[in-house]
């Protein structure tokens, strides 16, 4: 299997190709510097992203309030987390940093409020 990534470590943005069988990386090509290797290894084996979205808020200034994951979440859990957050509803008063969902889908990541 081959997969190509754009490296985001520096502005050059190398197109790096990973060749692998299953989870075993056989070849990494296209990186102009060694910093590309750990980047694509992570992106290939265990890509993670910060999730930002909104949840419904009762009694607040607006009908929704913005939230985010306090740590990066596994990329393949993002849509499952969105399903949980679609059903989440919180009540005013709301404070910045307040935990909305603790340990979402057993990831060890909390969802917190990002506005006040």
């Amino acid at each position: 299997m081959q997969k190509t990534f754009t490296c985001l470590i520096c502005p050059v943005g190398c197109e790096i190709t990973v060749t692998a069988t299953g989870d075993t990386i056989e070849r990494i090509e296209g990186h102009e510097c060694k910093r590309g290797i750990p980047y694509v290894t992570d992106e290939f084996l265990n890509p993670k992203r910060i999730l930002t979205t909104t949840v419904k808020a009762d009694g607040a200034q607006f009908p929704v309030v913005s939230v985010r994951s306090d740590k990066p979440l596994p990329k393949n859990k993002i849509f499952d987390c969105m399903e949980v957050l679609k059903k989440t509803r919180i009540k005013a008063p709301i404070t910045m940093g307040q935990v909305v969902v603790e340990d979402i889908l057993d990831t060890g990541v909390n969802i917190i409020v990002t506005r006040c």
Partner: protein
Amino acid sequence: MFETNYDVVIIGAGPAGLAAAIEAKKVGTQKVLIVERDHALGGILQQCIHPGFGLHIFNEELTGPEYAYRFIGQIKPLGIDVLLNTMVLDIHSDDKRLYAVNRERGVCNIGYKSLVLAMGCRERTRGAIAIPGTRPAGIFTAGTAQRYINMQGYMVGREFVILGSGDIGMIMARRLTLEGAKVKAVVEIMPYLTGLTRNKVQCLDDFDIPLFLKHTITDIKGKNRVEKVTVAQVDDNLCPIKGTEWDIDCDTLLLSVGLIPENELSKKAQVKLDPITLGPIVKQRMETSIKNIYACGNVLHVNDLADNVTVESQIAGMYAGLNALGKEFKPRKVTECIPGEYIRYIVPQKLEVTEDRQDISLYFRVKEPARNVTLEISSKGETIARARRQKINPGEMEKMKIKADAIDKLGDELIVSVAEVKS
């Protein structure tokens, strides 16, 4: 009429206005006022709920509202006054007063010793780029859709096409996808991405959203609601190529086709504008062509990072504050910054050589993408500064520093250019 007087007045409470107000107060002024037309502080950061803010100045990754709060939290403790829901109508720079209106006080007449313009920018609309077709519902600027979805909790459509590869457009592509919508294409007329590469990777590639470079939208179809848009390839002169068109079914079109600094008030104050940036012409202390009026942030030139806005606005705020306290910087010489080979514009446009020598940062944009280049600042045929870049891109602002001890070498002009291109 309600009358009041301040040392420093700031128009706008986005990242520029907040940073400027804080610095203006910190240099020792007594009375600082922010005038804001929205009901809350933070400006556009309030609706930018995505991460990526603060990487440069706080060394951590924050969302827009969190970044804004780092500054909002300082406003009250510092004793800075705020007028919300207040629209500035006019600036009389001759007698250093401005006129504003709100529901509680009616028309207010506010005097200033220094004024900071921090009104930001606004989005180009369909009208500004003249897309042919019918005029159905379902056409939004990306930022308007962002406000609806992120603040008001209102989903604007189901199947989207986005015109323009600017950052807001790409960030909205991800946001819409997370909310269950289908983004069928991002269409960009230029042969390169106009936003940041990071946003292409994390907003488009992550969700397999196709990006069509060198394409544009040539028609919008639909009676009451958008039904489809026509996409066509463009030639090197950006003209659609006949025979390359195809239709994409969608109910909503988002436009992310550029931002325009909002300078109606600057014009009323007779501040001179730069025809390229469309913002005020400023010197390195962010002073405009009109004495006692300063400008910073997107009203000056459209930035890609809020962090850059903060740094620039801290300078504006500091010198607006010092000016209000009576500090003068007598120029011995003025140097014009001239965009050379491959450079579109430079901010600040003028440098004043004064007694106090400080490092000066120049911010500029290149005209075309290139790799392995040397950027150069020169004056009177002599090199003042050089910097190597592995990659340059019109979508990513460049910055170079002129060291304090090099300032005396400046002539009447300095030129910033891309000196060498190695392929």
